[in-house]
């Protein structure tokens, strides 16, 4: 009945660098993934919708976590980069009639280029100054979304057709689910692998001590720009998926509020942890839904709650961030590891 050994005892470097540390965790993950492919047959549209927006949020958050959590460059512009991806996909699909299988990676590449351009100030800036530069990127891109009407459709927005996979149009939540899930698995696996290769280690060294990293022969500027590129690529893919999901893109989906939301996702989930982006995305996506559920419950006795919902949601969002920063700064991932450790060590307390 030995499900898992208590502790990991690697005997080679290959085993130490492996994604799945033990057979048990491999079985768990594959089981979880298979169950994710089965679930949609049993749930209704509302839950499918929640899953779909979580998928998109996970991809955007993983990208931001590579930039902010792993390379240590704070970005206040992820929302705008997601917008670039969405508009790029919309423009490519409408103007050139590209299939979404081609349009999405192209949108990612375009966003990566835009992100790298806005990453250029990182040559001279770091920390706080860089985060302010990305704040400027956010406002400049938002301005372009509204003003470049020939490309973005201005305030009225841009509409595109549903993604078409051979002859199946991904026009409802159920069909989109499988596409979203596959993309999420692909992107998260890619991120996990980026982190454990040379590039990922270079990112970590830039974050931890960039002077030491430079002394060891790492070209800091190159890796900072690369980090911006990868992060924006993820943002672009998330944006393109969002475009194919809602099919109408308007500038108000890509405001600074969205950028802040993505930052809070990685803080609440766990900075620098890929798993953290997933936990955080689930938490932040479900938070307003749970709040809506609670306010609906009390609305009959306190009708004013319905009008105040937007403010309550905003306040709850702020309070959650503050509570996490004060009491669990390492995020949900730490909690998860504590729970795992508890079962591993049981029945001993430590």
């Amino acid at each position, binding site marked *: 009945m030995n499900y898992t050994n208590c502790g990991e005892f690697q005997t080679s470097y290959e085993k130490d660098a492996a994604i799945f540390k033990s057979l048990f965790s491999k079985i768990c993950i594959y089981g979880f993934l298979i169950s994710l492919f089965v679930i949609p047959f049993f749930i209704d549209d509302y839950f499918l919708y929640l899953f779909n927006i979580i998928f998109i949020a996970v991809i955007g958050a993983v990208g931001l976590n590579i930039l902010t959590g792993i390379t240590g460059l704070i970005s206040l512009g992820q929302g705008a980069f997601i917008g670039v991806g969405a508009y790029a996909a919309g423009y490519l699909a409408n103007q050139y009639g590209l299939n979404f299988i081609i349009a999405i990676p192209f949108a990612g590449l375009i966003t990566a280029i835009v992100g790298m351009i806005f990453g250029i100030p990182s040559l001279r*800036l770091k920390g706080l100054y860089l985060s*302010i530069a990305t*704040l*400027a990127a956010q406002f*400049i891109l938002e301005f372009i979304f509204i003003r470049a009407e020939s490309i973005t459709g201005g305030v009225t927005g841009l509409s595109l057709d549903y993604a078409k996979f051979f002859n199946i149009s991904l026009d409802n939540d159920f069909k989109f689910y499988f596409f979203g899930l596959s993309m999420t698995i692909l992107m998260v696996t890619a991120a996990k692998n980026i982190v454990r290769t040379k590039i990922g280690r270079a990112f970590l060294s830039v974050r931890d001590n960039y002077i030491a990293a430079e002394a060891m022969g790492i070209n800091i500027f190159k890796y900072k720009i690369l980090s911006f590129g990868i992060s924006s690529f993820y943002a672009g893919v998330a944006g393109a998926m969002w475009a194919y999901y809602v099919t109408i893109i308007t500038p108000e989906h890509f405001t600074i509020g969205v950028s802040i939301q993505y930052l*809070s996702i990685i803080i609440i989930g766990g900075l620098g942890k890929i798993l953290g982006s997933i936990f955080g995305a689930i938490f932040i996506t479900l938070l307003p839904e749970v709040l809506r559920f609670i306010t609906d419950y009390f609305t009959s006795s306190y009708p004013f709650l319905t009008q105040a919902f937007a403010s*309550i949601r905003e306040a709850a969002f*702020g309070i959650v961030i*503050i509570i996490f920063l004060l009491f669990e700064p390492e995020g949900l991932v730490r909690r998860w590891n504590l729970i795992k450790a508890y079962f591993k060590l049981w029945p001993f307390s430590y």
Partner: protein
Amino acid sequence: MEFFLQLIVAGIVMGSIYAIVALGFTLIYKSTGVVNFAQGELLLVGAYICLHLTVEYRLNFVASFIITILFMFFFGFFIEKIFLRKMIGEPIISIIMLTIGLSSVFKSVVQLIWGTNTKTFPQIFPEEPLIVGGISVSYVYIFSIISVSIFLALFTVFFKKSKVGIAMRAVASDQQAALSMGIDVKRIFALSWAIAAVVSSVGGILIGNINGINTSLSQFGLKVFPVVILGGLDSILGAIVGGLIIGILENLAGGYIDPLIGGGAKEVFPFIFMIIILMIKPYGLFGTVEVEKV
């Protein structure tokens, strides 16, 4: 020419308000090293409280102005004590996110209490503008410039002459040395937040008198970044000079570029300007250049 001068005057008024809000920002950054993303919300809270006192309780404008300032002093003081004190030594991103979280809470509480519609202060100044050499200047503008100047002068004297002011400068330049000279650094931290809250609320009240108040006023908190980057994040003189320059440039951009592109230049121009400044002179006009050591 007249149009140009008109833009300059409006720019100076806006710029002086930017300057006073930036002063609060700089003060917090200088002494505590915290970047305050909730600066705009402090302004919002101050403006709404002053409005509430004048409209609901029918207080004299001067009286409500003074009460607001007193309230904001303690408000800032307790924000530092309750939230920021625990964040000492945490990474920058945590502190940035904490102030963002605070801003989101303040903004939504203001919305819950006062709603989202634009409210205006009762008319205090004569509506007829003053005509000086062909350009019209409204009395609100004159009042703004005068009160900002008074506040800035008061602060200059405060930092140069008063014991607390000197202590604040000491903490800003070297915390450890200040601590070993018997300065209560924690109290200085709280005090800088208190003063920052006060100056932002002054900015909020002035802007409220000019344009009316709604929650979009908190945008000011983000507009302050180009100002402090231009002036130098930790320079008080920089905040004033930067405020005036950005105010004027922004208005000129609004006046001359807007007709060409159809609006919005005012919002985005300071940020484009800021990126250029960051590339050429990252520490601004008067900021301290950080020296890297291993």
